[in-house]
């Protein structure tokens, strides 16, 4: 079974040299720690930046330089700034090669729910709906089951959707699954996880 960092490290293997990538908040943010040697990616921030650098040194925080999580960051050599309509033009227009996002639920047809739990506090979808609709490849990183042990990899999502048929690959603490014709296909098992364990923890149809 993978921990948060191992999941992030596995997700980092999805990245290819030269790609422009958007990383969501949570485990996806950790992915930037595991980018493989020789692979250079440029990180996009929805609020109008290509080329997110590391957090600033203490005392060098700039209120005019934040990421989409509202954290202070720095620029890189190749950084460019632009406005929000331009930022989402490149997202919607398919210029971003990959988004790695967290999820509450994923369904076997690629449906994704990650923004709203009815009856609970609703904070808004932010840029998530635009990202899943526009980015070329969507990879979800999440725990396979919830705290009650119930599968989050479902036949159909029960929560309000963020996007319909948008997820390409799911990376969980139990392994890696691809969304294919008819259901999900097991790509890889996490260390020490058997195929049976993965199947048992998965409500969705597993094919192939």
């Amino acid at each position, binding site marked *: 079974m993978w921990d948060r960092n191992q999941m992030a490290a596995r997700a980092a293997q999805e990245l290819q040299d030269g790609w422009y990538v958007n990383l969501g908040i949570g485990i996806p943010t950790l992915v930037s720690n595991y980018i493989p040697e020789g692979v250079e990616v440029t990180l996009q921030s929805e609020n109008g930046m290509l080329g997110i650098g590391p957090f600033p040194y*203490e005392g060098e925080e700039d209120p*005019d330089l*934040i990421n989409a999580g509202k954290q*202070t960051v720095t620029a890189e050599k190749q950084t460019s700034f632009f406005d929000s309509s331009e930022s989402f033009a490149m997202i919607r227009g398919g210029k971003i090669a990959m988004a790695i996002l967290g999820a509450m639920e994923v369904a076997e047809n690629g449906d994704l729910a990650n923004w709203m739990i009815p009856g609970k*506090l*609703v904070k808004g979808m932010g*840029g998530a*709906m635009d990202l899943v609709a526009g980015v070329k490849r969507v990879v979800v990183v999440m725990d396979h089951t919830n705290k009650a042990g119930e599968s989050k990899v479902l036949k159909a999502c029960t929560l309000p959707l963020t996007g319909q048929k948008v997820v390409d690959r799911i990376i969980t603490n139990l392994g890696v699954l691809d969304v294919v014709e008819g259901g999900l296909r097991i790509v890889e098992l996490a260390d020490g996880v058997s195929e049976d364990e993965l199947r048992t923890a998965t409500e969705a149809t597993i094919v192939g």
Partner: protein
Amino acid sequence: MAAVALTPFRNVAKTKRNQAEDFMKKVYGSAAEALDGLLKDGMFIAAGGFGLCGIPELLIDAIHKAGTKDLTIASNNCGVDHFGLGILLDSRQIKKMISSYVGENAEFMRQYLSGELELEFNPQGTLAERMRAGGAGIPGFYTKTGVGTVIAEGKDHKDFDGETYILERGIVADLAIVKGWKADESGNVIFRKTARNFNVPAAKCGRVCICEVEEIVPTGSLDPDHIHLPGIYVHRLIQGQHEKRIEQRTTRKKEA
């Protein structure tokens, strides 16, 4: 459209003489003065900024003091408790928000859950494009964002090349309030780093746009290739001190 005979141009000397005083007409002494005559209960305001980054602090404060009520505000966020647009929540001046994310604001949640405040969630990119479209004379555009979600409910659907899209409307606001870094007296504005964000599309969608900046420089001081928001979009300008509060101060340690 045909070739035109070479013609002399307008009197250059005259142009130079009048320029300084004419463009000075956009510059106002304070946020309150700049807002004079533009505020009305029930009006629709588009506000720039993302989180607390690049928000029009001075104009928000002046609208608070003016007490204008029943506002509909299109803004990606609604500030935080007691700062930014949060000030207008405290004073119950906002009737409705059009936003993509409101997670930083407990008072917002309280008013929303109690039914005191209307909230229209827009995906962030849809909101930015609705502003840009409204400013560009585009009353509607199709997008894949939100297809198959609650966002698509009640909206026109149309297929293009075998894929389904929904129709989103351009937004035109009665007033746009935005925050730039530097402006010249003719209203050309440049922004700094990620503080540009929603300020450009918000400015464009306003029937009237007021821009507050950290510094107003004489016309001619800015490189015309560096202008992010041409003066045509900016009707009134003010200069002032900004708190520029940081929402999430994240840092790393210097390596030895």
